């Protein structure tokens, strides 16, 4: 390589500096860009050479974007960043025609987030709710009362205690057979590799058979949680529950729906439950609104089902089933959902009423398509659910019971 001139050196220096700034902006906007990626970006820009704006764009895109969803954020960040700093134009020197002034159209999605990420370093609004001091050490009888108390009727202190109890829920492992094999004492296949090694130890005179059996693994869980107005007293605690489940197992996907569907899986991955819930809150726009179950299920079936319902997933559908306008679409979508997962469990807090009858049209439409229908309104029913998840063949939540009650 020839020695670069001083001017080119300075240019590379500025380029590096700007890519570092740009990466920081992307990080603030929610694209995980590590220092390694920044080094790669520099190498890539060097490899591709500084050409047109489009080439520069795609070069950075190739290295910094690792998910399809991030393309949109990247696009916005790129426009704003390199327009604001006027950097690219200087860098690409006279090679670029002057960019025409962009007319003010409707701000594209993602723009808001970028603007905030880029400009709001001053607005460090760290909102910490006042610490609620609660003594969570309950006596046995207190605990018993808490177990049976409806979440909707709990006081703030009781809710805090319930959260604590949820954190301690132990999700025992239900396992399904995978197609992978592992060494097994009484397996069904001969592990020739280990057999051979073992027999070599004895000089090859004795052949001691070793076996392989199927390896087991807990199946993924996909939770669809209704956050509409009628469920609002429950959603927070359910989110705590889902956070606890996410923590205990690796593969849990969580979606919230009211009038539209939001994927909050990533937000729930934060270790601290309050942090996770705050992140969830920041992601969702339709808290405590109406319910459009059919529309939301349709969005799930279309956009996500093929991506998350693989490898024998269990779906937890948490909703009261009070659809705003139930029609044929609801039956169609819940049927499709049922067919694309291994087990569909409907958790309905309305089942808390002893006199509950599946009368509402939405509920009657959905019941025939679920594998299990269970109550979820207090700690006891949560623990019951956890037990049911661990014993895949338990027939305790048969939904037909509820239909028969009416008929």
């Amino acid at each position: 390589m020839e020695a670069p001139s001083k001017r080119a050196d300075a240019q590379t220096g500025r380029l590096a500096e700007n890519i570092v700034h740009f990466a920081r902006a992307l990080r603030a906007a929610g694209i995980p860009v590590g220092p390694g990626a920044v080094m790669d970006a520099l190498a890539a820009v060097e490899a591709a050479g500084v050409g047109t704006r489009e080439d520069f764009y795609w070069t950075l895109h190739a290295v910094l974007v690792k998910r399809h969803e991030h393309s949109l954020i990247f696009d916005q960040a790129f426009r704003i960043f390199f327009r604001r700093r006027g950097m690219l134009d200087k860098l690409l020197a006279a090679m670029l025609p002057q960019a025409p002034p962009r007319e003010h159209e409707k701000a594209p999605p993602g723009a808001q987030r970028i603007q905030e990420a880029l400009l709001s370093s001053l607005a460090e609004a760290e909102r910490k709710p006042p610490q609620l001091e609660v003594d969570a050490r309950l006596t046995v009888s207190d605990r018993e009362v808490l177990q049976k108390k409806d979440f909707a009727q709990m006081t703030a202190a009781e809710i805090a205690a319930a959260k604590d109890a949820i954190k301690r829920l132990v999700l025992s492992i239900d396992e399904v057979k995978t197609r992978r094999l592992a060494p097994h004492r009484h397996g069904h296949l001969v592990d020739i590799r280990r057999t051979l090694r073992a027999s070599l130890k004895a000089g090859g005179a004795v052949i001691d058979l070793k076996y392989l059996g199927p390896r087991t693994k807990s199946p993924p869980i996909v939770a669809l949680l209704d956050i509409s107005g009628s469920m609002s007293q429950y959603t927070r605690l359910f989110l705590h529950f889902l956070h606890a489940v996410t923590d205990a197992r690796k593969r849990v996907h969580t979606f919230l729906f009211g009038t539209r569907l939001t994927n909050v899986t990533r937000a729930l991955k934060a270790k601290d439950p309050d942090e996770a819930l705050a992140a969830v809150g920041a992601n969702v726009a339709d808290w405590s609104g109406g319910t459009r179950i059919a529309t939301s299920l349709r969005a799930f079936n279309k956009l996500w089902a093929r991506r998350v319902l693989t490898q024998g997933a269990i779906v937890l559908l948490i909703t009261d089933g009070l659809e705003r306008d139930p029609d044929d679409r609801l039956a169609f979508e819940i049927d499709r959902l049922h067919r694309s997962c291994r087990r569909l469990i409907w958790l309905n807090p309305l089942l808390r009423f002893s006199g509950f009858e599946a009368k509402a049209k939405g509920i009657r439409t959905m019941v025939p398509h679920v594998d299990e229908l269970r109550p979820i309104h207090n700690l006891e029913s949560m623990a019951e659910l956890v037990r049911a998840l661990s014993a895949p063949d338990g027939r305790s939540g048969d939904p037909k019971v509820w239909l028969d009650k009416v008929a």
Partner: protein
Amino acid sequence: MTLTPRSLPDSIDATLDLLARADYLADRSLATVLFLALKMGRPLFLEGEAGVGKTEVAKVLSSTLGRHLIRLQCYEGLDVSAAVYEWNYAAQMIAIRVAEAEGAHDRERLEHDVFSERFLIKRPLLQALAPDPAGAPVLLIDELDRADEAFEAFLLEVLADFQVTIPELGTVKAVQPPIVVITSNRTREIHDALKRRCLYHWLGYPMAERELKIVRAKVPGIGKALSEQVVHFVQALRKEDLFKAPGVAETLDWAAALAELDVAALDPSTASDTLGVLLKYQDDIARIEGGKVKELIDEVRAELRAAE
């Protein structure tokens, strides 16, 4: 097949030309990421809907660069013995018996002989690391989302350092790293750790203009009018609310089917009869069949007339 190795392209434009030589009409973004992957020696991670030409990229690379194509099709339960290597147990058993018959009792020696390269069966990943006179091969890891996470974790070592560890033999390292293309249909999310080692690109559906070029390049016998109608019909169809929109592969199949049927111009009844080539879900077919097809065709005709 004799391969004539060619050198790697030295610019984005050269990469575009290279792909075009094998009738793969890429857009500039794909050419950029491909050029970078070749230049920086990084794996290329292609994600996108089924039938947009992800696998084709690897095939085209192998044919235009004159390299061998080594393909690893992923499936659930794919393990090391199917992806990397396996010992030839039958041959090993015989070798042990022969050694016994000859009265050899040196156990160390026997073990060393039995676990030597002679008894190793190389599977795709190991093959890709072996030196090749035609230049580093193209390694296609197809539909990685079908394999389970355990296999993904294993790939990390291979993709980061282009090496594989065999306990009995030691570490095998590639002299020249292979050109790696990984594809995924996104039936599940691939772990970030793996993506981080790759250059990522999302392959979308092409615009009408480029799709038309693709159809004309790949279905030589097709008429000008029919190809335009086919492409615009498919483009309109993708805007409909379908469970699975047709990919480029479906467009090509349909164009070829219509050309075989000697259709000169698209009409509603032929289109309805051959809809199964484009749409693969009964719900989608039921939704489009009949009136909707006619509506779309009228739309396409009006659009094409306006463009003239």
